[in-house]
């Protein structure tokens, strides 16, 4: 069995959004996609070094797209009716599409509606099986005030990302690496092999 390594990590909060410089399209994305893109950007990985079809993108969306669902639904009676742009983001996996478009990543995708406790092991499995050589793993917890009220949990906005690969990295991924937030807080410098 090939060893899988953590090659880069990142962690971002809502306070990081105003300083994001990700082009004019960025402002049109929903909050979850913005957080996910910013987390991936913060990995510092140059994805052009890799064959795009060998890079998978895996996402854990803590409450799916519920924050955007509420925003879309609350706008249904506004001028012009419900927003077609926002509707596209009422899918939990929409952020994967945005990451794929920005970085031209054409490998397989996986998205869980849940916290991130199985994300890294499932991503590693994709690599172990040869379905991908690299994997961008993103965990998003985007709970707006309106969504928080709906499902009666505290609001929060945060995202973290981990880049997995074979061969080398910051350290080997183990079965105990289940809490992405803690993991990402412990590493900050990327080390990538092309």
């Amino acid at each position, binding site marked *: 069995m090939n060893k899988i390594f953590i090659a880069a990590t990142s962690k971002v909060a809502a306070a990081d959004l105003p300083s994001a410089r990700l082009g004019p399209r960025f402002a049109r994305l929903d909050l979850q996609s913005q957080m996910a893109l910013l987390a991936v950007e913060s990995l510092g990985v140059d994805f052009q070094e890799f064959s*795009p*079809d060998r890079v998978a*993108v895996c996402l854990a*969306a803590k*409450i*799916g797209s*519920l924050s955007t*669902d*509420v925003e*879309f*639904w*609350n706008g*249904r009676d506004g001028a012009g*009716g*419900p*927003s*077609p742009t926002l*509707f*596209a983001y*009422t*899918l*939990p*996996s*929409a952020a*994967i*599409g*945005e990451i*794929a*478009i920005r*970085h*031209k*990543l*054409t*490998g*397989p*995708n*996986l*998205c*869980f*509606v*849940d916290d991130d406790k*199985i994300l890294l092991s*499932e991503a590693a*499995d994709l690599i172990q*099986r*040869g*379905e991908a050589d690299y994997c961008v793993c993103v965990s998003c917890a985007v709970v707006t005030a309106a969504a928080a009220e*709906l*499902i009666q949990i505290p609001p929060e906005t945060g995202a973290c990302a981990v880049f997995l690969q074979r061969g080398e990295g910051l350290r080997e991924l183990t079965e105990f690496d289940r809490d992405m937030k803690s993991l990402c807080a412990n590493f900050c410098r990327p080390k990538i092999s092309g």
Partner: protein
Amino acid sequence: MREPPANFPTPVAIAGCGATTAVGRGVEALRSALRANSSGLRACEKFDSPRFQSKITGAIPQTGNDNDNPAWQFATDALEEARSSALEILKKIPAERIGLVLSTTKANIAALERISENRLCSETARRHLQGNFLAADLAAAHGARGPVQCVSVACVSGLVAIQQAAKLIQRGAADAVFVVGVDTLSNFVMAGFTALKAIDPNGCRPFDKDRCGLSPGEAGAAIVLVGQASSLCSSKSQLDRQDACPTIKILGWGGSNDANHLTGPSRDGSGLARAIRSALKMSKLLPAEIDYINAHGTGTPYNDAMESIALKNVFGEACPPFSGAKGMLGHTLGAAGVVETILCAIAMQEKFLPGTPRLNTIAEGVPAGLVREPRSVAKINRVLKLNTGFGGANGALILGHE
């Protein structure tokens, strides 16, 4: 007999199925509609409003109840049928070794509508706004104490859920997994597709020259997947009326992303073609060994054109027979991959090629293999199931029948 691929150590097979769809409740209703090439699309008065592009949908025939949790109901109905049909096999597996993978895009979105309109909504219905809680509660209610996942990759979710379930079995985390697909029709979904101008006012017509959009649908669908350990092989599944062991197996899969546009497919079909090639490679099959393809076939101009190009890209002029089921069921979103895989399993077991309901005139550019009406065949042992979705996702799954 063909050897399983090297990276596929444990064969995984379909032991039971259940479905609640626009053509009625139960797999038998699906089987009858498939044989008759009939459509379950009809006018649904609930959506008779200028706010929506069409009132023609693939709605499940109404029960008359004002249900605040239709996702739970449809999923439960389908799962009960699937469990019942796989009862003999499931009796041999402890609950701790049974997992559940839920495929959904919107879970119980009906609760959001009800709460925003100050209509009665139970705490359970509210809780099931979150797909992971819906999955956990389905598992608890149906005796699955093994691993539970909620997968949501747009309209490819169903195929990804089947893959995830197969992986759980292959790596020894479970001996059986319930794959459940569910999405329900709602004002939310109808308003969204109307905003995108994606609905055919007259009902969808996949691969037709006059096609102009999809028809939203709803479904609950469930598949019991089991590892083919010898101890399980003395039981029949409902799909295997004469055999001593479930014989429809998962041979391989492939996934890709177009990296092109959030709501539109790539025009050249290269992403879907890549997913198909990955599935063929994992299954160790050549394109010529595929007997039938069940297409995504939404009925939107761009999707069906892209899919046609992708099929020609992989299969050239010798495209195997293919058809699409969304003229029968509508687009059931997160349930589509699961319910359409059940259709494929029925066709394989009964040796016939499903047709393409509501097709009138085949569009230009569609490969020659499009099946208009169902017809019997001598063999249909290797089937390719395709789905694509928003966010550029593509999925391909290959089933085998020994």
